[in-house]
């Protein structure tokens, strides 16, 4: 009897202590670091997640900014943070892959940015001014063929999903366009509205906002995007172009799996909140549900896809 009693107590203790250890995270405010300017896609999404995350995790979630070097400063800083999960940073594909590939001293390696969840993506879209003579992708390609190099395509930043998509599209369509990087998706819009560029390679989020002012010719997603039902995919038009930016949250290497799971579950719950999902999809964000392992797999796949591309474009 005695031993049984002891056993029960021991089991109870294990459960309680184990449960406590599990319930312990999070027991203080968390820092959600954004490596880009406030007002950008990462920030807008984080701000929408913030109240829901606080409700789910039962702790304050403080959105902080660590801006610079196209995100590099924030990611290099993530490596210096404690591995307790209280600080996580928004990550961005292809940025965290392309930066270490193109810069000798990015301050981090792709695999050091450990994703806990990848919660959304914004596929690339080819957009023109609503008054532009280009009504279809074919019109655009025809013009670009007649004016090699003189067709100007704007986009957000160098070595970004926008630039990659523009380069791949050039190759697929057999054209040569000139890419102008702007400081962000928002900065590129005035250039299109003011007719300073012929087209923009931008993200789906820009589609709804400028309805009536810009025309979307095609979207680089595997199937049509729910917020833009009338925009064909590049694949439908015969160009095998699927490209976009994926965003999620990451922790420094060595963070315990249990902690990662708590965060991943929280992000997943946020995404499954019907009101949140409705609002974000209407704004052009595509919700994604990549857990820790699936996210790492996604990164590995993208590394394989991007490495030869970078080598090719560098020439």
């Amino acid at each position, binding site marked *: 009897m005695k031993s049984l009693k002891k056993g029960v107590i021991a089991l109870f203790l294990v459960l309680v202590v184990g449960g406590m250890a599990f319930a312990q995270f999070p027991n203080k405010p968390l820092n959600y670091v954004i490596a880009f*300017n*406030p*007002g*950008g896609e990462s*920030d*807008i999404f984080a*701000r*929408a997640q*913030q*109240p829901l995350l606080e409700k789910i995790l039962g702790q304050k979630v*403080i*959105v*902080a*900014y*660590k*801006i*610079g*070097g*196209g995100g*590099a*400063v924030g990611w*290099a*800083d993530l490596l210096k943070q404690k591995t307790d999960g209280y600080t996580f940073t928004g990550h961005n594909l292809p940025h965290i892959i392309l930066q270490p590939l*193109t*810069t*000798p*001293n*990015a*301050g981090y390696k792709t695999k050091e940015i450990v994703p806990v969840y990848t919660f959304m993506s914004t596929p690339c879209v080819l957009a023109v001014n609503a008054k532009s003579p280009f009504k279809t992708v074919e019109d655009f390609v025809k013009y670009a063929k007649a004016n090699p*190099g*003189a*067709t*100007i395509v704007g986009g957000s*930043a*160098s*070595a970004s999903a926008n630039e990659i998509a523009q380069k791949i599209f050039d190759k697929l369509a057999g054209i040569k366009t*000139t*890419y*102008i*990087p*702007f*400081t962000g998706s*928002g*900065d590129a*819009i*005035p*250039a299109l*509205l*003011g007719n*300073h*560029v*012929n087209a923009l390679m931008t993200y789906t989020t820009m589609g*709804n*906002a*400028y*309805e*009536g*002012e810009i025309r979307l010719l095609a979207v680089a997603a595997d199937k049509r995007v729910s917020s833009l039902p009338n925009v064909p995919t590049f694949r439908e038009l015969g160009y095998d172009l699927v490209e976009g930016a994926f965003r999620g949250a990451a922790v420094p290497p060595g963070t315990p799996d249990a902690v990662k799971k708590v965060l991943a579950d929280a992000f997943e719950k946020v995404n499954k909140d019907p009101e949140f999902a409705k*609002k974000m999809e209407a*704004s052009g964000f595509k919700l994604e549900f990549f857990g820790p392992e699936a996210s790492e797999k996604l990164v590995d796949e993208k590394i394989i896809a991007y490495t030869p591309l970078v080598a090719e474009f560098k020439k």
Partner: protein
Amino acid sequence: MTMQIFMESIVAIFTFQNMIFMLAAIVFGMMAGALPGFTATMAVALMVPFTFTMTPVSGLITIGALYCATVFGGSFSAILLNTPGTPSSIGTCFDGYPMARQGRGKEAIYTATIGSGVGGVFGTFGLILFAVPLARAALRFGPPEFFWVAIFGLTIISSISEESLLKGIAAGFIGILISMIGIAPVGGDMRFDFGLVSFQGGVEIVSVLIGFFCIPEIFRMAMDPSASYSDANSVQHEKGALKRAFNNVIGHPLASLRASVLGLLIGILPGAGGNIANLIAYNEAKRASKHPETFGHGEPQGIVATEVSNNAVVEGAMVPLLALGIPGSPPAAIIYGALLLQGLSPGPQLFTRNASLVYAFMLSFFVVNILMMIVGFFAGKGMYKAVIKVPIRILIPTILFLTVLGSYAIRNNPMDVIIMFLSGIVGYILKDLGFNTGAFVLGLILGPIAERGFVQGLLMGNNVSMTAPWIIMFTRPLSIALIVLSVFSASWPFIRAAFRKKKGGATILAAALEKTEDPSVKKLNTDYVGGAIILGVTAIFFFQIKEWSRYATMAPKSILLVLALFGLALLVKGKFKPEMIATTFTKVSKSLALVIVVGVLWVFLLDKIGFLATSFAAFFIIMFAFHPKKGAQRIIGSTAVAVGVIAVLYLVFVKFLLVSLPTGILI
């Protein structure tokens, strides 16, 4: 706008709840703005989550109030501490701080308060009446135009560095060079990072501003910690300060109109904001003035120009946001996000789909600016009294602590704190050598805009000519207009000097005589020293050039070439017509040496030992050293003040403004 929408909007604004929200936002914004290093962008970003619980109208009104108040609050620290609280108040330091030192601080603060309100009201008129056509017109500014706008801004250098144009331009180019540290705007190459990851984000302008403007003043105070804050008898000047302030603004309606139009127009341009507008407005006020020589020595019209213009920028930035859904400034970008999250899609259709909301938001700026003036009178008076009453020996470590806190808070980067303090030391020396730190700051702010415009313009030029793409910079009508303006602005000081000579050069001659009075003081050939420094900097940066892509290398190489030429020109000038200055930076009092040593240790050990531990130690050492009493009283007194000040500011930043401060080995 129909009458019905107008009435709907008015009703929507004037609720008790909205008034409370506005007042709270104004108080919070003023405080945030007055803290150096805490910008409008950060304040607005901080407030956004709170607005989700409000109705869209209340949320927008609150954010708008906050934006206005933060920009205005920056003038407090500019006037009282010579530190622009936000980059929109750089020019306010030029005359505000001299006024404060002359004992006219109250007048300066009241002038800034009224000016800000007036600028905001003017701006709101512009926003409501011309939003859509102005936003359409702004779209005509493409990369080539932005390049020329930046060049136009840079021509201010010629008027602020009349004493030595060579040094002024060289300082501007060094500013541009420093702005190139970090990621290249086209090509994405990492430039001039000197192998340090912390340099990848580039040099933060706010840190340099704090260092250049505030640290030299702390050093000056530290030369003699027992001196008083202002030179003259301030009580005498305090009488009728409000009346004089009213006269400064209301008595010069044309000056206010000019500054607010400039602010509004610059605010509308996406990518250009208050940091540029206040300097251009300052320059135009000086140009239009009958006595431009008073500027920089406590001329209230200088404050009117900067503060009127920077608050008109706020409404200007709303023009493209509300009319087209294009955020014209970083805080506007956050408001864009807030609109999106409120379920409203910001864009051209906002005006038609949510007319009453948009008009309520725009009309609320009238209410905000008037409320802001009222609150500003009390807050300004309080801050002025606080700074005047605190003895210099306590002011020194307190301001120093603020600069450390502020330069860290801006990007949570310990490197920024180091840059801040080092640029303070550099600024202290350069000023003595006859280099204009304002010119340097202009280069730092406008450099990236100029480079981006130039390189993007060149790429765009492929559309015009594949063989000579640069031609696009000179062919577009708006560009040509901007080129003409730039040439005029750059040569204006010479035109005016020629006019003056005709009228009679007596005053200039007298000033020249005054300079050469005391032959016993040892003077330095600052042209030799300056030339050598410039060539040194050029060499250091030249050897950092790596194999960058073509468009990333173009601008740095040209700037380095120009700098080398200016360095040589200064050496030649030093041989034939040197500028001899009796420098003072070589004379360092014991108390100043202590502050410098403590400061350097503080900024370098900050993230290694811990923020609180280093701050307390540094604060205590300075307090203890400058304490007039002896024994236990000295220790207790120093500890009490150090703990008190640090605790209050720490709580404000960490608990209220949610800045996470670094912890090292200790705390």
